[in-house]
């Protein structure tokens, strides 16, 4: 056989070392004697890819990596410390904007929402509820509308955080949902409770005297108000949720009333200022929602038609509708809010179309444009193109739920809806989206696992190689050190170190970095042992001896003969170590000594599930996180295991 020369051939031999041998074999042997000769690397790969479970696991791990790396990039609105009190413990649902078809048929009269569910009233006098209707741990499903409400012809309906109130054509008031704090109806027990402002008994017994006199029915956080045209106000509910509830109990002569998150705001006939019964509240007005300079409410009223004609309250701000059709804002809107739209000359919002959700405001202008602005965390202030393109006439109405908007035409048909449609994995105890936290927490968990395992591997390689290569007293000393470190109980010691470092004042990033170091520094011994053993084994093996006796240089032996053997061990250790580092981090964070709250990791997200109440009632707060964590570690371990099997020459001979 002629000898090929040149760099191309050299490369060919480097990449396909078996080929040359095969050529020789082909020449010398008859066809039936031929045995395919494959390089060890190829063999390992073949063996690994024959294992279907391992391939599946590898794909899952890869997908998981992609998920945690790329998914957070699409979550522009995500922030670690995001909390939303009205969206606490919402179960997984995507039905928050699913207006029932039957209601659309009957024609939509009004839509109202305050918390996680939305209440709709049809032109036929029926009420419908959609969204997350389970009320916390009380076991009450607000979607179970009482039969008497279904039977009655309802004229007004409003939704609070955990209760609904409806009034029928006879003036009878119905309430359902949570009634623990006197949210609806009159009851003798509520009368004795000092923290409850009770519904007047005659209202409960006889209903509203004249239904047509009702100006407004509105509900807030466990609180309800009915305002009559003559200025009579009926108000009841939980006194602790609204600091100024008492000021409204005997109040007469209001023309408008609404609930923010913490206060009740009213407007009296004079319309010069917002009535809240509290001093120094709501005095500074802005013309723009966000950045405009503030003016005193007195001056603002003077400048804009000398009168406030109506108010609408979001969670922490109040919209003032002025007599000259301009709008003013008191209070704060969230920082990432969308500013008020620029209106063309002569365009103004029709006062009776303006509706406020938890953070956003929506309204229709006299020129037929629909705008929504304010808080845009769930896209509730981004009007869809379809809506922006159509001209709406005066018969159109727009309603806002808590984070949703519904545009309804003159016949009561739903034209479009936009905003929050729900949470695929529910929300946590702070009201943050579990799905977003899982994606971001996964990134953190995996980063910590990866960095920790890299630290482990580096220390392990250095110590293992030195010990295995030098031998003698260096070996003994290093192995004794490894034994001492290996004897330190990992979890308790890591916890204690982490707790100690918590007393030192440092940034969250620094703490996380130190956490990685702690996990890495305490976990290298296994790798060091294994590497040392492999190196010793390889050094003593016949092929190394043969290479030595042939006069191959020491470095060449190390690279060509020892390194491939050792590499496989390192590879397996990286895989298995990665999973175990992730588990250590999760355990530490779960116990509260790893990564701390606003920063999510899979471990500290599960920290919420330390008591049986949460485990039982809010299953979504632990099921999904556990699943992600479990699937990731299981798959990584399966891959590591398969890799080890594939690399182990003994395992094939046994089969």
């Amino acid at each position, binding site marked *: 056989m002629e000898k090929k020369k040149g760099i191309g051939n050299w490369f060919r031999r480097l990449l396909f070392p078996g080929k040359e041998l095969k050529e020789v074999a082909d020449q010398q042997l008859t066809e039936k004697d031929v045995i395919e000769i494959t390089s060890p690397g190829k063999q390992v790969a073949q063996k690994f890819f024959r294992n279907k479970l391992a391939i599946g696991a590898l794909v899952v791990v890869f997908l998981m990596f992609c998920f945690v790396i790329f998914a957070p990039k699409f979550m522009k609105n995500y922030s670690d410390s995001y909390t939303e009190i009205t969206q606490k413990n919402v179960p997984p649902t995507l039905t928050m904007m699913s207006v029932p078809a039957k209601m659309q048929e009957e024609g939509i009269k009004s839509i109202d929402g305050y918390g996680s569910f939305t209440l709709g009233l049809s032109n036929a006098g029926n009420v419908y509820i959609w969204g997350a209707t389970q009320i916390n741990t009380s076991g009450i499903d607000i979607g179970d509308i009482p039969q008497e409400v279904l039977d009655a012809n309802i004229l007004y309906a409003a939704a609070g955080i955990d209760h609904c109130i409806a009034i029928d054509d006879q003036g009878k008031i119905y309430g359902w949902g949570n009634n623990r704090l006197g949210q609806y109806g009159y009851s003798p027990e509520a009368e004795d409770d000092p923290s409850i402002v009770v519904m007047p008994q005659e209202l409960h017994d006889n209903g509203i005297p004249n239904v047509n006199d009702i100006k407004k029915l509105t509900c807030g956080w466990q609180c309800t108000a009915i305002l009559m045209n003559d200025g009579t106000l009926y108000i009841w509910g939980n006194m602790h949720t609204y600091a100024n509830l008492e000021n409204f109990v005997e109040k007469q002569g209001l023309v408008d009333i609404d609930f923010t998150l913490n206060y009740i705001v009213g407007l009296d006939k004079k319309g010069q200022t917002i009535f809240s019964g509290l001093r120094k509240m709501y005095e500074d007005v802005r013309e723009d929602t966000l950045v405009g300079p503030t003016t005193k409410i007195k001056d603002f009223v003077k400048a804009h038609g000398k009168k406030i004609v109506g108010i609408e309250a979001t969670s922490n701000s109040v919209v003032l509708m002025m007599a000259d059709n301009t709008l003013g804002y008191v209070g704060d809107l969230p920082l990432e809010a969308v500013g008020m739209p620029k209106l063309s000359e002569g365009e103004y919002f029709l006062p009776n179309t303006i509706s406020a959700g938890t953070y956003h405001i929506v309204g229709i202008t006299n020129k037929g444009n629909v705008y929504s602005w304010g808080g845009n965390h769930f896209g509730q202030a981004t009007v869809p193109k379809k809506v922006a393109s159509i001209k709406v006439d005066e018969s159109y109405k727009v309603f806002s739920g808590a984070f949703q908007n519904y545009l309804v035409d003159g016949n009561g048909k739903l034209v479009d809806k936009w905003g929050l449609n729900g949470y695929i994995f529910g929300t946590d105890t702070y009201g943050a989206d579990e799905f977003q936290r899982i994606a971001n927490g996964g990134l953190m968990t995996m980063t910590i696992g990866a960095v920790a395992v890299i630290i482990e591997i580096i220390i392990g390689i250095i110590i293992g190689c030195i010990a295995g290569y030098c031998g003698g007293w260096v070996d003994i000393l290093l192995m004794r050190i490894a034994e001492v470190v290996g004897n330190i109980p990992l979890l308790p010691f890591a916890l204690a170190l982490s707790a100690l470092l918590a007393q030192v004042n440092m940034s969250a990033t620094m703490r996380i970095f130190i956490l990685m170091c702690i996990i890495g520094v305490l976990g290298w011994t296994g790798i060091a042992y294994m590497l040392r053993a492999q190196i010793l084994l390889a050094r003593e093996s016949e092929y190394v001896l043969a290479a030595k006796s042939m006069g191959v240089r020491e470095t060449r032996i190390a690279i060509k003969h020892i390194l491939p053997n050792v590499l496989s061990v390192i590879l397996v250790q990286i895989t298995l170590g990665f999973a175990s580092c992730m588990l250590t981090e999760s355990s530490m964070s779960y116990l509260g000594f790893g990564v701390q709250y606003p920063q999510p990791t899979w471990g500290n997200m599960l920290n919420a599930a330390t008591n*049986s109440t949460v485990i039982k009632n809010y299953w979504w707060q632990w099921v999904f996180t556990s699943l992600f*964590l479990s699937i990731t570690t299981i798959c990584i371990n399966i891959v590591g295991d398969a890799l080890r099997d594939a690399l182990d020459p003994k395992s094939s001979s046994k089969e």
Partner: protein
Amino acid sequence: MGKYILKRLLYVFVVLILLTFILYNVYSLVPQNRAYTDAKTEVNAMKNMLKPSEIDAKFDELYLKYQRMYGTDTDNKIVRYLRWVGVWPFYDGHCNGLLQGNFGYSWEERAEVVTIIGDPMKNTLFLNLFVTVIALGITIPLGIRCAVKRGSVLDKTVQVVTIVGYSLPIFIFCIFFIFIFCSVLHWLPPSGMKTPGSNYTGWKWFWDRVYYMILPIITLTFSSLAYMTRLTRTAMLDALSMDCIRTARAKGVRERTVIYSHAWRNALIPIITVVIGWFLGLFSGSMITESMFALNGMGTLFLKSMRTADYDVIMLIECFYVFIGLIGNLITDLVYGLVDPRVRVNK
């Protein structure tokens, strides 16, 4: 053998000293000065009786007194450590350390650490021993079975299930079991050690205790099955591929004898090593389980002390873990020596 034991003992002793020294120094990094706090409190209490000019002098006097009392009147880390152990005299000429039975003082509980650590230690030991017995009782027969029937459906299932088992952190098991047995089935209590307000004695007390311990024991056992099963299986597989087994089979020895007498004995060596290590790992592993089920164990105490920064307690428990670990290593080595004659000869 005697020389070998002595050698190992000496080694354990040295490592113990080394580790406790490291631990002691890590904990002395805590920015707390007990002498200073005590002196300050006492001076504040006496403030009314002292002239303003005397306060500083009195404080210095008291501070020195307390520093001498607590043995912190020197910055020498080694001296402090030796005082803590009890082989270096304090200022008053007496030793008062671990060797004299002074295990420290819990500032949270206002009691000697020894008195508060007794009960939790008993509970933890009980829990772990129980779990070990059950887990070994299940895993060893299962592992042997899987190894003998290699490649069977049982073996393959067990392989997959055990990967799942050892990939999951223990708290997920806890959450899952609490959900199943307490929230869904209502069979077992989710936490605690006894029926609240009960004051049972005798058998009634025992059954009540068992009732509350079932779930923690199940959880711990379940989470430790995977690792041990895999280990037994691997060890058994290695043993079964030995030449002596082939010889025994060729000779016509009954399969039962081959497996349980010839192969099992050989497989025992690696198993023993790991069982002991694993048993010790349980102690720190049961920490999460204990805190999850609100058991009065060492793990719960450890976590509680860490939350309240009660460092004498943490230090002692940590030392206990280290001590247990070293003793475990020693036992492993000794048993190894007993089971495998080669080890004895070599050393």
